């Protein structure tokens, strides 16, 4: 007995094919829609802020006068923050990853730490801000310094660095380690001179990407209480500071007071995005240039 009518099937196929191709473009449209918004965002920001970027704006000190205001203090603040973040996350992240991937026994404690790291990656950044305020600013009495801000951001991105470093270590072929052990190398020697150098490009790539996340973080800094007007440039870890996203935030808020502040905010956004762009380019460069294919 025939249940399926070939003629019907033929007729339906045309409809089904048309539906398929229409939806293909709908799906493509959805994929592109995000990019369209991104384009609008960039175009708007650039058209609003680009005219305000000049040498004085980039190198100058902060000022209440929008014509005079410069962003160098915030750039330097961001830079100092990054130094702290790089220092702590690279060491802690790499160390933790090495422990978890290469030393830890795969048992309860291991999976507890692993779950914990995954969860930390999902904790809202504002909560890290509160942690930083309570622990670094108040308890350890660092005040609203680069160090306190940097440590807060370090904790924030540490889970990301650990996870990506773990992936990098996992990608090192086991045969390399075996070759080293086979020559009588100890575990640490093998890790130090074979596994780590091989994984390093990926680790760096992951860390730079985490760093670019840290650069843009605003909420934790808001909680830490960063001064709104700080004219001198920060020169060290114990200095008080302002950072690019903070300046964007303040200028956005104060646009009601002085309209041009909105343009300064846009100009600062351009600089921030530029820094992110450079960081990401470096990451991609390292990945393409130094990563081995096995």
């Amino acid at each position, binding site marked *: 007995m025939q249940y399926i009518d070939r003629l019907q099937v033929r007729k339906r*196929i045309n409809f*089904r*094919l048309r*539906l398929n191709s229409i939806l*293909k473009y709908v*799906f*493509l449209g*959805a*994929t592109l*829609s*995000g*990019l369209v*918004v*991104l384009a*609008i*965002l960039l175009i708007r*920001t650039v058209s609003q802020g680009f005219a305000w970027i000049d040498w004085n704006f980039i190198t100058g000190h902060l000022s209440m006068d929008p014509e005079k205001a410069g962003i160098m203090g915030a750039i330097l603040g961001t830079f100092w923050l990054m130094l702290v973040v790089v220092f702590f996350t690279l060491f*802690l992240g790499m160390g*933790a990853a090495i*422990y978890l991937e290469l*030393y*830890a026994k795969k048992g309860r404690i291991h999976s*507890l*730490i692993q779950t*914990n790291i*995954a*969860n*930390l*990656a*999902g*904790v*809202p*950044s*504002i*909560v890290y*801000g*509160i*942690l930083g*305020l309570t*622990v670094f600013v108040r308890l350890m009495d660092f005040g609203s310094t680069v160090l306190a801000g940097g440590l807060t951001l370090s904790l924030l991105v*540490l889970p990301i660095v*650990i996870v990506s470093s773990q992936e990098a270590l996992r990608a090192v072929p086991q045969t390399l380690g075996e070759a080293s052990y086979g020559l009588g190398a*100890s*575990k*640490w020697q093998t890790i130090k001179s074979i596994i780590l150098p091989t994984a390093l490009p990926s680790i760096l790539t992951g860390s730079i990407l985490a760093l*670019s996340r840290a650069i*843009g*973080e*605003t*909420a934790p800094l*808001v*909680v830490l*209480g960063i001064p709104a007007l700080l004219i001198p440039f920060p020169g060290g870890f114990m200095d008080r500071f302002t950072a690019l996203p903070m300046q*964007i*935030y303040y200028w*956005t*808020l104060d646009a009601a007071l002085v309209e041009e502040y909105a343009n300064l905010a846009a100009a600062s*956004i351009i600089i*921030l995005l530029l820094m*992110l762009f450079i960081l990401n380019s470096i990451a991609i460069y390292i990945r393409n240039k130094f990563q081995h294919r096995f």
Partner: protein
Amino acid sequence: MTTKNVSVNTANLSTKQLMNEKKSAASIKNVFEKMVPAVLFLFAAVSVLTTIAILYTLITEAIHFFQRVSFTEFFTSTNLKPLSQNPSFGLLPLLSGTLLSTIIAMVVAGPIGLMAAIYLSEYASDRVRKLLKPMLELLAGIPTIVYGFFAFTFVTPLLRSIWPEIELTNILSPGLVMGIMIIPMVASLSEDAMNSVPNTMREGAYGLGATKLETAIKVVIPAAISGIVASFVLAISRAIGETMIVTIASGSTKNFSFDVTESMQTMTAYIVEVSSGDAAAGTTVYYSIYAVALTLFTMTFLMNLLAKKIARRFREEY
């Protein structure tokens, strides 16, 4: 046996040296070898310490809060007037703000992200995927403060030109922008899930005369469903915790309402407001941010656990 008869002189020397140094350095080396994992364990423990520190700070300070404000009031009152003469500390206004912004974001990011994932994993050629996916992921790399600025200075005015009743600060605009921001999260993770559906399953459907669409909708998505759900849950958790976009664009009205045109505050924005505002340490208002933060932490923590559980079940299927 002790000497290698054929070896050249220098190599002979090196062997001796080799042996000697090994012996002399052995004990120091051994101690060092044992120390390394201990030190590295401490590094790994930092992450655990962080969690403990977060919990400890939030809980100890939140206890102060709950000594003054009852659980019932906090979780059931629709009134939040932290600084008024008769203060009240109901969480519900913040919860409604958080809920609304999250729902709006997911209404945007869910379908668009899923459609993008379908396109990338089922339709796009390798080259197109390799081009589009990183571009899409750029969206996730833009700092949220930039999105906040964008929502406030562009999206809101745009919405108001279409729909004049919308308030200058409203929950709709940051919700939409937040949705755009998390598209790549949904798209990327869902695409990963769909990609890990074995090709044989697709072939099964194609072999029955199914189109790509039918294969994607009826075979691939059901097969990848737990991975997709996990990506949604993670995206929701992200939306709940998002701060700057709502701080800038949704205002600070503590409004228990579900009207998206209104200004309202989320839990995160409340924390920003109070901690950058006038709250003096030791006051109930000051402690309230810890209670709110603890609620926020618990919510996102549960979401993340849930996502992980779902994702793990997904991985076990293949």
